[in-house]
C-alpha cells in the first residue's frame, strides 16, 4: 500500500462533505509569514484598513504547520529557494502557492543575474502567478480571489502535483543545489543535528 492510498480512502468516506470542506478551506486561508523579495512590502497595505484581507478569513500566521497559503512575493535566489522548499514541505496538505510578480515566472528584471532562479515552477508547484513588477495590492487581491475560486472548483491542486511528480521536482532541485543539499544545509541551520 502506498502513501497516497490511505489519503484516498479517508477522503472517500467523507466525499459527501467534500464541497463543504472546500468551502471551509477557501474561507480560512492562513498565510505562512515568509515573504521573500520586493513583494513583501505589499503585505501591510493588504492587511490594513483599505483592503483588509482578514474579512476574507485570510490571516498571517507564523507557523508553516498551520498555514495553507504560501506567498512567494518576488525574486527567489538559490539560498532562499532552499528555505522555501523546506518550509513548503513542512506545511500540511492541502497547501497552495501564490507567486507575485514576474520574477518567479521568468526571472523578471533579474533574468540575467547569477543568483535569481528563473522558473520557480520547476522547483515547486505554483497555483496562481500574478504578472507585473510589482503587482499592486489590487492585483494581489485578485490573485487571492482567483485562488479561492480554484479551491472551490478543486483546481488548486499544486500539492497533489508535487506529490505525484516528486521525482521530477526533486531532480530539478538536486540539479540546482547539488545532491545531498538537504542534509548538508539542515546540519548548518540546526546545530544540534
Amino acid at each position: 500500500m502506498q502513501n497516497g492510498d490511505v489519503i484516498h480512502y479517508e477522503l472517500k468516506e467523507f466525499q459527501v462533505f467534500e464541497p463543504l470542506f472546500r468551502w471551509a478551506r477557501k474561507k480560512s486561508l492562513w498565510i505562512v509569514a515568509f515573504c521573500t523579495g520586493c513583494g513583501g512590502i505589499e503585505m501591510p497595505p493588504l492587511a490594513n484598513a483599505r483592503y483588509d484581507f482578514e474579512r476574507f478569513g485570510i490571516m498571517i500566521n507564523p507557523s508553516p504547520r498551520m498555514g495553507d497559503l504560501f506567498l512567494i512575493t518576488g525574486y527567489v535566489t538559490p539560498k532562499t529557494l532552499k528555505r522555501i522548499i523546506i518550509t513548503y514541505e513542512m506545511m500540511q496538505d492541502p497547501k497552495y502557492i501564490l507567486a507575485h510578480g514576474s520574477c518567479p515566472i521568468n526571472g523578471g528584471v533579474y533574468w540575467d543575474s547569477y543568483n535569481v532562479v528563473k522558473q520557480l515552477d520547476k522547483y515547486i508547484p505554483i497555483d496562481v502567478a500574478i504578472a507585473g513588477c510589482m503587482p499592486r495590492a489590487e492585483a494581489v487581491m485578485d490573485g487571492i480571489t482567483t485562488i479561492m475560486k480554484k479551491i472551490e472548483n478543486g483546481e488548486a491542486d499544486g500539492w497533489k502535483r508535487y506529490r505525484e511528480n516528486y521525482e521530477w521536482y526533486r531532480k530539478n532541485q538536486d540539479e540546482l543545489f547539488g545532491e545531498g543539499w538537504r542534509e548538508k544545509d539542515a546540519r548548518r541551520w540546526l546545530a544540534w543535528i
Partner: protein
Amino acid sequence: MDMNEKPKVEEKVEEKVENAQPVEENKPELPDTTEGKLVEVLLEKAPYAEGEVIRKRRVKFTVPAERIHEFLELASEKFEMLMQISVVDWLKEGQFEVNYQLWSLSESVHAFVKTRIPRDDAKLPTVMDIWPVAETYEREAHEFFGIIFEGNPRLGPFILEPREYEKHPLRKDFNTLSYAKTIYGEDFDRFDESKTNYVI
C-alpha cells in the same frame, strides 16, 4: 662584446621651452567653512593625501594605497564612524577603487576616502583595529571582488553560495548571462542577446 653591457638607448634630449613658466599648483581652494577646516586640519597632518570639499557636508580624500591605514587612523579622530566600504571596478585601467565612507558625529560631515589598488593581487591592510565594524564590509568586498584584506581573520565564504564565491560576481569581467545559462539551463525564455525582443 661584453654580455653584461646594456644595450644603449638613444637618449632623448628634451628641448627646453624657453620662457617656461613654473606650473602653478592649482590646488582647489578650500572654502572657509566647517568642511574646509576639517580637510585643512587633516591634510596638514597627512600631506601625502589630497582633499577637497564636494559640497556642503561632503568631503573627499584621495590617498595612496600604502598609506591608507595610517590616514584612516588619523581621520578617525574627527570621523568617528565607518559607514561602509564600497568598491568600484575600473576594468580598463586595471584597478579597483576602494571607498571608505566615514561619518563625523561631531561635525555631521560625510567623507569619502578613496584609494586605488591594482586589480590582480589586490591587497589592502584591514582597518578592523580602528573600526571593528569593518569586518563585515571587508568580508563583503572580499567575496564580491576578491580583494584580500590582510589581518582580517574571517575572510571566506559569507553571503554567496560556495560556487559563486570563487567567481567574484561583481567584477566587471564576470559574464553573468553565460553563468546564468549554465546554472539555470537555457530553457528560460526571454533571453535575447540582441535585445530586440527585450521585455521585462
